[in-house]
């Protein structure tokens, strides 16, 4: 019987990978007060970038945990997640290398005692990469576009800073894991270059879901889910009228990064820098 259920999981994994994940559907459940969620159903498609926004404690992280667990009306929210319109067998997510979702949370840290290069090589081998050397390099290059100081192959995983860790986790999920769905929980807090991250991620045909307090990330997403009291209140599509605001915020972010750079270089600021700010 056990072998049979393993077999079913295997078949299901095959089906998911052959068909590929075109969309996932979130069927609404219940908020903290037990009332039905205003958003009854939400479809997310490959290539979409979605933000989940709302005040602290409103249930943003619970929502992405429901997605990661393939909730089937069996979590406290009562939500159901469908992939390509099908519910997911409960045992499906047991083998993490078959799991189509990568969740990168505020708390995930590396505990492995291996150097970065060696760890990524093992991971690439498990995932059956054809050219292991190439994907390992691509992963480190990807991560290094998001960090301050570069990650080296020889660096121990546990020696990485918070921002480097988050960057490498994203790089690993995108390049080696090639996960079709990537959930990112408040990555802006780790000090990684967020607009660069968005630009970089847009090149990959994946579904990215950001839990975020950052207005720039929210406005540069395709749509945003508004959360309150544990429930999805509504979904707002980004539209052309919002573009100027998004652009203005992006410039402010760039200005902050520019000044951060100057300060990190040990420069003293003067009026000419302020002029530069106005040009930005």
């Amino acid at each position, binding site marked *: 019987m056990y072998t049979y*259920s393993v077999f079913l999981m295997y078949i299901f994994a095959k089906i998911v990978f052959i068909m590929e994940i075109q969309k996932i559907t979130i069927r609404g459940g219940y908020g903290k007060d037990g009332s039905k969620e205003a958003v009854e159903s939400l479809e997310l498609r490959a290539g979409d970038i979605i933000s989940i926004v709302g005040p602290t404690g409103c249930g943003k992280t619970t929502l992405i945990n429901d997605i990661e667990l393939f909730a089937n009306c069996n979590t406290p929210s009562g939500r159901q997640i469908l992939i390509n319109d099908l519910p997911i067998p409960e045992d499906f997510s047991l083998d*993490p*290398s078959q799991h189509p979702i990568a969740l*990168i949370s505020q708390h995930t840290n590396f*505990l*492995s005692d291996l150097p970065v290069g060696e760890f990524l090589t093992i991971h690439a081998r*498990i995932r059956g990469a054809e050219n292991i050397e190439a994907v390992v390099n691509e992963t480190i290059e990807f991560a290094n576009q998001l960090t301050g100081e570069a990650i080296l192959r020889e660096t121990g995983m546990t020696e990485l800073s918070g921002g480097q860790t988050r960057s490498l986790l994203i790089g690993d*999920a995108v390049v080696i894991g090639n996960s079709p769905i990537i959930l990112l929980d408040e990555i802006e807090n780790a000090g990684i270059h967020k607009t660069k991250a968005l630009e970089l991620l847009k090149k990959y045909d994946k579904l990215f879901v950001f839990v975020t307090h950052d207005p720039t990330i929210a406005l540069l997403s395709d749509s945003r889910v508004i959360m309150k009291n544990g429930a999805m209140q509504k979904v707002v599509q980004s539209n052309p009228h919002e573009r100027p605001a998004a652009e203005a915020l992006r410039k402010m972010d760039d200005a902050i990064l520019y000044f951060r750079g100057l300060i990190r270089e040990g420069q003293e600021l003067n009026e000419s820098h302020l002029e530069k700010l106005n040009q930005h």
Partner: protein
Amino acid sequence: MKLIVFAGPPTCGKTTVIRQVIRRMIKNGHKPSYIKIDVLYADEDEIIKKEFGIPTHKVYSGELCPDHCNVVVLDEAVEWAEKAGSDFLFVETAGLCLRCSPYVENSLGIVVLEATSGMNLPRKVGPMLTIADIAVITKIDLVSQAEREVFRYGVTKAAHDVAVMESNALYGIGIDPIVRRIEKIKEIEMPMFLRGNPPVGTCTICVGKKEIGAKNHFGVLRTMEQELFYVGE
């Protein structure tokens, strides 16, 4: 009686997994009982008795190693559980030297390993892992998915035939597949036999010899260069 033996390094989450499993077993109409074998101190039996009101018991191995103690008391334990009206007996043991394994033929052997314990752990724990039926990997919420995959790979490489089940036991995630497997096991047969081969050495330290150096000990001995020799009758 159906027998489930849980083994694993200290603080790996054995008791947390067992509590989640027992909760579901009771809900499914079974009558479990629980025994904890530890060296010097244990209060898990009291915690589980208080939480579920099922028959529990603890055995201190004291001067014996816990796996040795398990072998000595297990037949009595099965009788005790039968008298208590149970259909499933859960044994939790703190195997220490990792050379033995506490699993009995026809029992379900479950080793619990924590995902946070380093990539080489699966190669270090020996028969406790390699002749188990299930390896439960706990604390998966504390590591990245990439590390979960690498740790799992390490487990399957060290033990090909062991079913790997991942669990975030604190939140009850990944417990149902373990329960389904437990519900399918066979009754144990008397007399019971250990599943693996015990070590060939007699532990002279267990019998109280404190002197350092091979010349002070007997049985199967070895040098630093791993040469085996035998001293004794």
